[in-house]
């Protein structure tokens, strides 16, 4: 194609056509003024589909909870309406204008909520066993979290749409894959908790629980137990949430209670950790510091007492995706338990001299994992 033909094609030649000029200019002007709105419309449609899926997860998790309470707990006929009320409970976090001393306040709010929920579930069926009650409480927390995710996402979406606010929809579009990943993981967790199956997060309790079999168990704190044994001439204290309840126990209180009564040379914490994108699943890593998730109050409590007493904290984590951590434990993760146990043995020998004492804490939800 020579230059003349090129000019003809775009009406730059002798036969200059104002109509052809308009054909080019009108879309340009149109997109200058309405391009953002078109983009908003396309993005909004994509987001709407995801919000619809979130709504499905929200409703399904609520139905599962209602069915569980009806079938397993012989609850009264008004239980669905009571559950509806619990699902809408919210927590107001303490003011952080003066952050000094905020941790006990946060702990107080969180525990008040937990205790209230526990009591409400007990009222639904006072004859139900502790296992059923803890399972129902976890299902309630899952349904409540999914409801919150849907509500916040829907709020941002509707506000952006109402105000035709394109910049507002962009962060939502960026965050939505992460929100959906978490929502899918929560939705997937329902069946495991309902059936009392160990989840990926339970690898810490699984490792410690296996070491506690045949040992005498004592209560260390609410829904948390400990045992004592000898490994390679070192006194080893083993601690985990009380299985097979669906509970993480209160490791903060338990560690504090035990350290007040016993002198330790080291603390070893075993937990599941979120793997990074591209990392293999079920990889075991060692490190330093308190390996414990959650809102941060338990970690603060353990760090506080360990720092005061100058006790080093070692961590062993088994890496997993959020979906794996919340769903039924995968075979790959379960097979790592024996490797983690042998690594704990090595760490005990390295961290304490003969005659010394080490505290080993299995952190995570202990559903389906006894001891």
């Amino acid at each position, binding site marked *: 194609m020579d230059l003349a033909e090129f000019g003809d094609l775009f009406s730059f030649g002798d036969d200059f056509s104002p109509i052809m000029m308009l054909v080019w200019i009108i879309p340009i002007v149109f997109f200058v003024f309405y391009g953002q709105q078109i983009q908003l419309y396309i993005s909004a449609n994509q987001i709407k589909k995801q919000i619809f899926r979130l709504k499905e997860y929200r409703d399904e998790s609520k139905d599962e909870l209602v069915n569980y309470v009806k079938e397993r707990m012989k609850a009264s006929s008004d239980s669905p309406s009571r559950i509806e009320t619990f699902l809408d409970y919210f927590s107001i976090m303490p003011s952080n204008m003066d952050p000094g001393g905020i941790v006990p306040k946060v702990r107080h709010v969180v525990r008040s909520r937990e205790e209230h929920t526990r009591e409400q579930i007990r009222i639904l069926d006072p004859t139900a066993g502790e296992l059923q009650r803890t399972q129902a409480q976890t299902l309630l927390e899952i349904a409540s979290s999914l409801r919150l995710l849907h509500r916040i996402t829907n709020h941002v979406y509707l506000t952006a749409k109402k105000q035709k606010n394109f910049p507002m929809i962009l962060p939502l579009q960026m965050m939505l894959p992460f929100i959906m990943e978490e929502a899918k993981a929560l939705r997937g967790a329902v069946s495991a908790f309902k059936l009392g199956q160990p989840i990926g997060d339970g690898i810490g309790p699984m490792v410690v629980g*296996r070491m506690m079999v045949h040992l005498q168990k004592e209560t260390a704190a609410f829904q948390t137990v400990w045992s004592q044994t000898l490994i390679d001439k070192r006194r080893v204290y083993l601690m985990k949430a009380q299985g*097979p309840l669906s509970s993480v126990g209160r490791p903060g209180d338990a560690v504090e209670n035990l350290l007040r009564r016993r002198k330790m040379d080291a603390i070893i914490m075993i937990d599941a950790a979120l793997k990074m994108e591209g990392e293999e699943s079920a990889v075991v890593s060692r490190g330093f510091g308190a390996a414990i998730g959650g809102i941060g109050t338990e970690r603060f409590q353990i760090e506080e007492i360990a720092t005061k007493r100058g006790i080093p904290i070692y961590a062993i984590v088994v890496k997993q995706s959020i979906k794996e951590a919340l769903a039924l434990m995968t075979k790959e993760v379960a097979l790592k338990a024996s490797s983690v146990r042998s690594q704990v043995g090595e760490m005990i020998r390295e961290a304490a001299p003969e005659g010394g004492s080490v505290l080993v804490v299995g952190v995570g939800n202990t559903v389906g994992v006894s*001891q």
Partner: protein
Amino acid sequence: MFKKERPVLPYTLSVCDSCGREGRAKFAEGDCLFIESSKCECGGRMMIEMIYGETTGR
């Protein structure tokens, strides 16, 4: 383009505390780790060592 999620089947792996024989069965409600699942042929106790999910199909 879109990968369909493969179903995950839950299994319970028991090991005899006497002869070490392993037995795998489909997970049944009430199974939980480190409890006795059944009696072994040797007279020992089959203890649940693992409960895990395995994806099926290719």
